């Protein structure tokens, strides 16, 4: 063997070795990434908690089921990304477990939901400013916490399908869901999973849900509705006018509301906002016989604020329409008249006075000369 062939052998051997090493590294690493994260404790915990009869009795007398269904975990957003039981049950790390001190099932929920904050701090903080947190602070133990809306072991996307959001809220807000379901928005959502109509959270917000009965919420309302109803593309899709908000803003009601909104948002005022005439959860299409603003019902709606209004009154309301000969003839002719009368008077006066100034100046100069 010459030194030259020896060197060639060493080279090939080294190359082959590197290749084998790379291949083995590839095979060693890639399966770990492809498979779901390894759930060590989940499997361990379920050796006991997979028993559907496992339960305990709380001091309140309630029976607390300790069963965790594998099926729930399979659909949970957490389990598949490797978040394990003790991420939330952070006081339990060994067996036997430390003794629980929860009086009721609700106590248990109220204690465990706080672990959501560890990962979801932004949304958790928001909920602390919400109407629900205020209710809780006022002593309502049933005020919802994270798990009441999102679920616990089966936590899954809250907006799939979209109608699920409204179904979730309806768990507590039972009286509101029915009018909503029959409204133009709710029907489109519940029946057709319409992607555009507002669900509860569209108007009320998600985590920092505020009291909708405040003056601030009231004056902000027209702008909120305008979020969709002033969107030309969206309104075109449903054959609706996108000018309603701009015309409202120029109306008697809209002017009042805008002044209050700009200056005194916390002072109550009676000028109508959208929901006063159209309804809140029960908004109907204007052509719907049950709509509050349907021609048949309009006077009764006006009379809520203008009790002595007579049958002619509804024509005083121009709706959210531009001036037109067919709909508002008086307004049409007044506008037409001033369209020419105003410039006629303005320019007539200006030209006449300028001519007089010129003529009298010329006369004066001439008489001074002579």
């Amino acid at each position, binding site marked *: 063997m010459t030194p030259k062939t020896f060197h060639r052998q060493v080279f090939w051997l080294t190359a082959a070795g590197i290749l084998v090493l790379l291949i083995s590294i590839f095979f060693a690493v890639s399966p770990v990434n492809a498979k779901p994260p390894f759930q060590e404790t989940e499997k361990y915990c379920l050796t006991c908690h997979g028993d559907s009869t496992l339960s305990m009795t709380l001091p309140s007398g309630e029976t607390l089921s300790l069963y965790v269904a594998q099926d729930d975990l399979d659909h949970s957003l957490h389990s598949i990304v490797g978040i394990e039981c003790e991420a939330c049950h952070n006081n339990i790390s060994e067996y036997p477990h430390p003794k629980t001190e929860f009086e009721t099932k609700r106590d248990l929920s109220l204690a465990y939901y706080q672990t959501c904050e560890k990962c979801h701090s932004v949304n958790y903080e928001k909920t602390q400013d919400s109407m629900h947190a205020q209710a809780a602070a006022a002593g309502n133990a049933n005020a919802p916490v994270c798990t009441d809306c999102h679920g616990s072991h089966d936590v899954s996307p809250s907006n799939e399908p979209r109608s699920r959001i409204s179904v979730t809220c309806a768990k507590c807000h039972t009286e509101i869901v029915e009018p909503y379901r029959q409204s133009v928005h709710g029907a489109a959502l519940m029946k057709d999973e319409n992607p555009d109509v507002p669900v509860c959270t569209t108007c009320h917000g998600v985590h920092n849900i505020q009291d909708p009965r405040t003056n601030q919420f009231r004056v902000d309302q027209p702008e909120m509705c305008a979020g969709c109803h002033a969107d030309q593309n969206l309104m075109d899709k449903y054959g609706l006018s996108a000018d309603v908000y701009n015309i409202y803003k120029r109306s*008697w009601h809209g*002017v009042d509301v805008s*002044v209050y909104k700009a*200056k*005194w948002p916390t*002072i109550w*005022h009676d000028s109508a906002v959208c929901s006063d005439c159209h309804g809140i959860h029960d908004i109907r299409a204007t052509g719907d016989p049950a709509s509050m603003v349907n021609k048949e019902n309009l006077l009764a709606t006006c009379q809520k604020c*203008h009790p*002595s*209004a*007579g049958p*002619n*009154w*509804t*024509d*005083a*309301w*121009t709706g959210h329409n531009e001036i037109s000969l067919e709909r*508002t*003839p*008086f*307004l049409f*002719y*007044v*506008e037409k008249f*001033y369209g020419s*009368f*105003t410039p006629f*008077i*303005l320019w007539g*006066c*200006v030209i*006449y*006075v300028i*001519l*007089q*100034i*010129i*003529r*009298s100046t*010329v006369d004066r100069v001439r008489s001074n000369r002579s």
Partner: protein
Amino acid sequence: MSGKITNSTPLARQERTFLRFSVGQRWEHAILLLTGLVLLLTGLPQKYRELSISQDLLSNPGQIFLIRQTHHIAAIVLSLLVMVHLARILILMSRRSLPGDLLPTGQDLRDAWHMLQYLLFMRKDKPKFGRYNFEQKVTYWFVFFGIALMGISGFIVWFPVQATQFLPGGVVPAAKLAHSTESVVMAVFIVIWHIYHVHIERLNLSIFTGHLSEKEMRDFHEKEYERLTNRPEEGK
């Protein structure tokens, strides 16, 4: 002061003054001026509410209430004035003693045409006017109909529910637009047309003093001057 020529001593001929407006008419003008100004100043901030000066005026709900209240009170005063004015006309008419000086005539059209030719250097002489020239008649009738319109539209928007008991609903938004627009047209007219004629062309304070001097009468109301001075009983 009761006669139209108030001086009888021939020595002071150059001091002769002519009664133009009675005390009642001067009061009418003063109240009209005051209420009109108040109505304009309290109305404009409501019309142009987005301007910063309006925002300052309407700085709290109490201010809005105050401004509206002031507008309404001035409107009532002006309405009473209009009634007094109309009542006076009716009384004079019933006595067959209403002077027709302010009524528009064909002579006014000829005077206006004459004036236009004069202003365009097509004639050298100004038209000769009577007691009220066509410019003054235009002022009176413009304000007359303007106030009528402002009053009617103003009361409709002030009492819309009552108005629609007997009027079609469509008049309410129309009245609002008319009230809002006519106010500005009137303001423009008064500022340009009237202020020019009584302050800049010449300072004519007869609506406050009640009198015109003899020179003013000769220069601006020549026909009236001739009519008054050539009356047989004045004969010189």
